């Protein structure tokens, strides 16, 4: 047998990532690059909100009702220390938006994490085991899907609010929101994962894993799941955007974050009463931030769907 000498300098992991198809298509796609830039900007700004924000909107000592409804600096009658003006309670809008975006992102990401966990587990079991379990789980998914997310969330949150009283509810609102948005949307993941598992489990590497004596759980988690990740990534982006919108809608309806700890949605909601009395900025500025955030996530999701679709480049 020949002993071929191969090049011993394998590129490092980082270099391989930078040279991958995905990175290449990213560099060639200005929309994706701008979206990623804006998303990172928003994400970093909200993560470091306590450092960036000039005021702490959660600290009542910082809030002076006399400062309420100052317009943004580019409008007449503004105070220089409040860049985006103040809201009806005298909170600096810029600081409140930073903290609010942070809450919205946390709720969105955690809710999607919960959805993904439930949906992937159920989808893997349904797809791999099949038979009666598959029918049962998918009918459950159908039932869940026939209730709209908002309807389920409104009923659930309204009941919990009535049960625990608004004091306790406000304290744990973040967790309630994560739970309800996470549970309401698991069928999206479950169906996608099940469909890919059905396609993957017929492939020969699964047979060869069985021949090597691996148990079903190992085959599902370690062999089939990593091969089903592309569609999971794609729906995750869409689902994060959806979860942020759901959270904002619920908060807008008064069933989400309390006004003392506003997310983007409750901020928009609290400013809505003042929109016709001239204080348009309280609603508009957080609204723009919400739209931009959701838009860039969706644009990234679109790009990712194109890149990860093997039909578009493998031929």
């Amino acid at each position, binding site marked *: *047998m*020949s*002993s*071929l*000498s*191969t090049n*011993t300098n*394998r590129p490092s992991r980082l270099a391989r990532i930078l040279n991958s198809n995905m990175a290449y298509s990213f560099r060639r796609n200005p929309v994706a690059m701008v979206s990623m830039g804006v998303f990172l900007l928003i994400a970093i700004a909200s993560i470091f909100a306590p450092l960036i924000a000039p005021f702490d909107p959660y600290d009542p000592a910082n809030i002076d009702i006399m400062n309420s409804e100052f317009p943004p600096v580019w409008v007449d009658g503004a105070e220089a220390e409040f860049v985006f003006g103040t809201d009806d309670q005298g909170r600096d809008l810029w600081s409140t938006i930073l903290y609010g975006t942070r809450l919205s992102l946390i709720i969105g990401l955690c809710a999607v994490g919960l959805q993904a966990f439930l949906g992937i587990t159920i989808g893997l079991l349904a797809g791999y085991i099949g038979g009666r379990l598959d029918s049962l789980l998918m009918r459950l998914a159908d039932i869940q899907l026939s209730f709209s997310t908002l309807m389920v969330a409104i009923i659930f949150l309204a009941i919990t609010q009535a049960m625990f009283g608004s004091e306790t509810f406000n304290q744990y609102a973040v967790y309630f929101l994560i739970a309800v948005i996470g549970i309401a949307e698991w069928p999206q993941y479950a169906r996608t994962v099940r469909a890919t598992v059905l396609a993957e489990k017929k*492939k*020969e*590497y699964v*047979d*060869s*894993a*069985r*021949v*090597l*004596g*691996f*148990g079903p759980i*190992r085959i599902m988690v*370690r*062999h089939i799941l*990593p*091969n089903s990740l592309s569609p999971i990534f794609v729906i995750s982006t869409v689902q994060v955007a959806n979860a942020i919108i759901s959270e904002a809608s619920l908060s807008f309806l008064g069933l989400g974050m309390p006004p003392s700890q506003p997310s983007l949605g409750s901020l928009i909601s609290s400013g809505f009463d003042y929109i016709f009395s001239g204080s348009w900025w309280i609603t508009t500025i957080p609204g723009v931030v919400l739209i931009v955030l959701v838009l860039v996530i969706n644009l990234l999701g679109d790009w990712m769907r194109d890149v990860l679709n093997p039909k578009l480049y493998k031929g």
Partner: protein
Amino acid sequence: MSLLSVRDLTVKFAMRDDTVTALNQISFDLAKGERLGIVGESGAGKSITGFSLMNLISKPGFIDNGQILFDGEDVAQMSDKALRDMRGNRMAMIFQDPMVTLNPVLTIGQQMVETLRAHRKLSKAEAAQIAIVKLREVYIPSPEERMDQYPHELSGGMRQRIIIAMALLLDPQLIIADEPTTALDVTIQADIMELLLELCQSNKVGLILITHDLGVVSQMTERTLVMYAGRIIEAGKTREIINDPQHPYTQGLINALPQQTLPGQKLKQIPGTMPSLTAIPRGCPFSPRCQYAVENCRNTLPEVVQYAGIEVACHEVKRLHNDRLEQSA
């Protein structure tokens, strides 16, 4: 004592209305370290035989009857845990297409280490050491680097070597190779077969080679089974079956080889195709295609008889043999 002893193995598939018999009362033995070839047309039941030896027939198929005694234990009756413990560990399998049998998202090293650690208590580093040794045994150049590579970075022949190395990882007693070179190109086929033969001989591993290539069988194996429509129709020493086949079907297979034909002539193929498993003819399943078939062949199923050192299922074996002797005289 033989390593593997299959008795009256019958495998059926449940269809909507009735069941279809894919394997019909297969019986054969394999001694320790023996190499056995299973030949036949597509659909004869060769691969089903391979899978049922591992008890890996997936639904709607099932083992209906029979024993598969592997090292004294009946594979058909084993618990799931015992089966998992046996698969890959004592009995390994090599598939046809190396392009799709390795997991595309795991590196070679991850897959080999995982296999070892699923069966033995080893640290990752120890497992990696064993894997590298095995890769070297199958002549993989610079195995340390291959460990970090993904299957798509390697050629087909290289991948099949790696699959062979994975089959040998846990020092099994038996390897089932299901058309291991069909998907490779001809020059590499010879290399891979030579490698497989060498490793089986040096490690005293039993081999069941499933193939439709009689040339490969004659080089690789000591005994051969010829299958047709889910039955074994001829079994015996490979050399005798290749040199003097008794069953008309086996004769047809050998005559159909391109080497048996002069350039410019048509290949001597067997007329017709194998019957569908849902419509196996009465009597000898080969009778509709057999040029020697007589009335009896179409009505009664031939028993397996010993003839000239070969087990053969043919009513007319004696007459045909004498005819051939007369012709050559």
